[in-house]
């Protein structure tokens, strides 16, 4: 069982967490958003092999946060509370 670091609760078992998407995938704003842009936001992904920064939720405490991870060897390099980069301005 791998341990993931919740910024609020500390290291907890991976099964307490749920993946929430790639960090920085911001919802398009405004009334003139093309179908392609919506498709990009809803469906298209970078899906990187190697270092990646993702949004996760710790189901136990209910908090969302950002986690930096390697998608090949699964090593976690850190986690942090959500900042502007993840929320948008």
């Amino acid at each position, binding site marked *: 069982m791998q341990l993931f670091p919740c910024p609020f609760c500390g290291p907890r078992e991976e099964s307490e967490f*749920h993946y929430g998407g790639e960090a920085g995938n911001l919802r398009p704003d405004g009334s003139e958003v093309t179908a392609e842009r919506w498709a990009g936001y809803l469906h298209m992904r970078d899906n*990187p092999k190697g270092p990646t920064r993702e949004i996760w939720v710790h189901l136990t405490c209910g908090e969302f946060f950002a986690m930096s991870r390697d998608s*090949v060897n699964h090593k976690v390099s850190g986690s942090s509370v959500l900042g502007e980069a993840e929320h948008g301005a």
Partner: protein
Amino acid sequence: MTRQYSALSLFKEGIAGQTGWEKAWRSPDPKPRYDAIIIGGGGHGLATAYYLAKNHGVTNVALLEKGWIGGGNTGRNTTVVRSNYFYPESAAIYGLAHSLYKSLSTDLNYNVMFSARGILTLAHSESAMETAARSVNAIQVNGIDCELFSVEDVRRVVPIYNFSPGTRFPVYGGTWQPSGGTARHDAVAWGYARAASRLGVDIIQNCEISDFIIEDGRCRGIVTSRGAIRAERTGMAVAGHSSVLAAKAGFRLPVNSYALQACVSEPVKPIIDTVVISPDTGVYVSQSDKGELVIGGALDRIPSYGQRGNLPVLEGVIAGMLEMYPIFGQLKMMRQWAGIVDVVPDSSPIIGESPLPGLFLNCGWGTGGFKAIPAGGTLLAHLLATGRHHDISRPFDLDRFARGRLVDEAAGSGIAH
């Protein structure tokens, strides 16, 4: 040299000390230019090569594989072949694959050991039975053989199931596709490779793509670890790495990569003669011809390119299996592994020209790519030969995500991916 496999050639070679067998496929050096390039030496790529040559007469083709053929998901899956899908578009594509599988051994002159042993999908609650009845209706309307099973039917087909009162996963019935079954995964790869090679396709292993050659906004070939290779049309069938290649070509795909685990037990005498799937526990079981129980589970819910898998899912699979089949309690597990699968939001494949003209896609099969190999090959070959969609592949174009016309099999047939 003996080329054709038959009882007579086997007998002759037996007498001659097995000295006359020709190599199953050639291993030529890559030429600088081809009519078409196929990236990926798994089942889908190899089938594409074969059907390009056989159906379209395009034989000046290079198939490039970064490792060895069949070493990715083709050699890692649990070999189930079925076509019991909800939407007509899906029934058409998986039905095409299923019908080609039935005659594949004869077609390729290679025994792929397709065994129509039937596929049972269990229903563990009253509401699951209602859904099963709805599925069976839709599948029958699609022209696919499928029946609704009662508890008695399940008992007849899988007598070793745990039917005791108070079990965590009681059986209310299920759906049954009698023509579904299994095929030998390695043989599918090797059979297509041999047949394609005999028709003139160059199969080049240990050849990794480092970049695409892009001129005037078109894909004109690729740069590989063995030099540049040019072609006006390139197809990619690289499940598990689709996003990585797409990034090199300058576009993104609606794909998330996840690990899908499987494991096998020590070989035992025949105990289960069908494929049993339990959507609620995510566990499916069949028995190989060697006697090993082949056990698969649901996806790891952690995006991953590591071909190992994490413990919680494996633990859930084994726990579910033991509750459903207490008789397996003393079995020793021999091997566990994972393959990296392309998971797409609507659980349907992506087939068609990519945003980079001249580059064509066959990806996004999720956890079910093996069963679709003959269809994926036929359809990508059609695209590479004609530049246009086959009627069956049209609904699966990448443009469906911007048009909102998804083929949502996760909602339709309740498949796990």
